[in-house]
């Protein structure tokens, strides 16, 4: 789960990391009032779950409260990477002397939280990583001992020569490590970490991604989810216990298991089609999940055919078949459906489908070929 910048800033501030003031506005008038409180010179920043906000025109400097109001008016309602901006953060415009990068990510290779630090922070940090890797410093932290003071200070000195600033950065790194485990984050980053002309070290922008598996035991973090900032189909899918990612094609895919779902999408492409989505109904699927999956796919006007690829293990063929039949009683499918069903309770499942007038295939290639053919416009 992604947090907004303003939510990430609040969390960092709670953990004692220096973050400049700033407030969230949902209307231009609110933005103006906040700007007035902050002394007029502010930055107005779109709060959306998308990178490249600045390049998209979603971050603007204002010299006065009136200008802040005008910028908020332009930014609120703007679309960035398909997401509508509904909130802006209004924060004092800081004078910046240097920009650095500090972040933690849980790294697969070392199986540890890795601290990444660079004196070349800012929007081009990925380019720096690719072109000047010597400017990126990493440390895999041993979770048994945490980030040790000398480790943090050593990295602090890669950012600043001044011992006070290096210590300030080290303190931020240690607190940031605490944030990772305190909120269940798979990513926490400060970019940029800035120094101001008077020498203080400050967080200018922050990003936190929460591991979805943490949400059940952290209701206070789960409550930070901003459903209005997410695609509606994905919200509906999550509520139904499905994993759904919308794509641009016209073959709706409904599969059990993420690996098989990806392999099915790949096979659709292999036979000349385009998948409309990734949809994993998961392990012990009950019929209601299948109904929800069909409801989501049929509500997409671009879907021309629906393809089921089910290899039953924990998932039972009869559950899936019952779900498909149940769905047809609740709403029209509108498009043809191709069903591949094999594995656990395959016989029972196929019998249920056939009684309801459907046919089922047992071979994955045959089913995908048929679905792709049905999605193609009919030859005149």
């Amino acid at each position, binding site marked *: 789960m992604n947090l907004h910048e303003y939510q990430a800033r609040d969390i960092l501030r709670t953990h004692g990391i220096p973050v400049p003031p700033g407030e969230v506005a949902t209307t231009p008038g609110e933005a103006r009032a906040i700007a007035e409180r902050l002394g007029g010179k502010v930055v107005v920043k779109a709060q959306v779950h998308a990178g490249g906000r600045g390049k998209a025109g979603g971050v603007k400097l204002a010299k006065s409260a009136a200008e802040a109001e005008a910028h908020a008016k332009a930014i609120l309602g703007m679309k960035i990477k398909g997401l509508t901006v509904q909130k802006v953060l209004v924060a004092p415009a800081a004078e910046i002397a240097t920009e650095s990068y500090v972040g933690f990510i849980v790294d*697969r290779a070392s199986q540890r939280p*890795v601290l*990444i630090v660079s004196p070349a922070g800012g929007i081009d940090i990925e380019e720096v990583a690719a072109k000047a890797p010597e400017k990126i410093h990493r440390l895999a932290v041993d979770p048994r001992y945490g980030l040790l003071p000398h480790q943090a200070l050593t990295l602090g000195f890669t950012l600043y020569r001044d011992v006070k600033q290096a210590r300030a950065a080290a303190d931020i790194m240690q607190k940031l490590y605490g944030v990772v485990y305190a909120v269940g984050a798979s990513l926490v980053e400060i970019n940029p970490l800035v120094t101001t002309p008077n020498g203080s070290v400050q967080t200018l922008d922050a990003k936190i991604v929460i591991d979805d598996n943490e949400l059940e035991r952290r209701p206070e973090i789960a409550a930070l989810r901003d459903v209005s900032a997410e695609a509606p189909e994905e919200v509906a899918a999550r509520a139904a216990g499905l994993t759904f990612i919308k794509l641009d094609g016209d073959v709706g895919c409904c599969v059990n298991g993420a690996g098989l779902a*990806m392999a099915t999408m790949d096979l659709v492409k292999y036979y000349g089609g385009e998948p409309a989505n990734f949809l994993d109904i998961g392990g012990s699927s009950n019929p209601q999940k299948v109904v929800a999956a069909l409801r989501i796919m049929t509500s997409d006007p671009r879907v021309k055919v629906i393809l089921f690829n089910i*290899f039953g*293990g924990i998932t039972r063929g009869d559950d899936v078949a019952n779900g498909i039949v149940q769905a047809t009683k609740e709403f029209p499918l509108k498009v043809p459906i191709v069903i591949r069903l094999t594995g656990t309770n395959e016989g029972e499942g196929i019998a249920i489908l056939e009684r309801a007038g459907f046919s089922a295939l047992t071979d*994955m290639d045959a089913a995908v070929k048929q679905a792709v053919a049905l999605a193609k416009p009919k030859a005149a």
Partner: protein
Amino acid sequence: MSVFIDQSTRLVVQGITGRDGSFHAKQMIDYGTKVVAGVTPGKGGQRFEGAVPVFNTVAEAVHATEANTSVIYVPAAVAASAIFEAADSGIGLIICITEGIPVLDMTRVLPFIHERGARLIGPNCPGLISPDKSKVGIIPGNICKPGKIGVVSRSGTLTYEIVHQLSTNGMGQSTCVGIGGDPLIGTSFIHCLAAFEADPQTAAIVMIGEIGGTDEQQAAEFVKEKVKKPVVGFIAGQTAPPGRRMGHAGAIISGSSGTAADKMAALAKAGISVMKRPADVVPLLKERM
């Protein structure tokens, strides 16, 4: 022979009285796996299916039954604790089926089990099966046949698909191992490739990877240096959307190396025959054997 499990496997089922645990314990017993004990705190003294003794702790189960392998079906919130307990009780091989364990829990579990010399397979995996000898986990026994192909995979149902292709075309398996789809797992491709290379029953290896991380690239390097047996590979996610970025840090750590294209190129470069689709597995193996 086979790898990791065989007739000498003495299994304790953690969470044996739960919904998934009881269902799959029964399936494993029916398959012929030596299920010697179950563990559910508070239910010690009971018997599962009238036969398998249930204990309150793994340590008691090991003491009473000489269990050497554990399989975990407990809920995600307590799964890390179950792994710690198994390793602390002297279990040498721990298979964690549970899905949804917070990744930060695994950052603490993995050093602990390494220190105790235990091997963890998973979490979020279907387990493993050495056909006609032992099955630990949830892989359907009826789709597997004994033979000489070693299968290692990050996926669950995609593994079933490919094993099904093998079995229906007369290619049995020595062992099929599902290593799990989570970012942090106990057993990597490399561990399994090394085990298959050393196993006299295994004549060829199928590895099934997917997008994300760089485990497949490391496996490819290992195959190039250390594996003499033919290897056939598949990578799922060629059409997966590039989104779902993990901020800048994800890109700094992995660059473009997590993509299917990059992984397929690494496999091919290491002399692994790369499938374009699951149905290619049989023809490619025939070509290589």
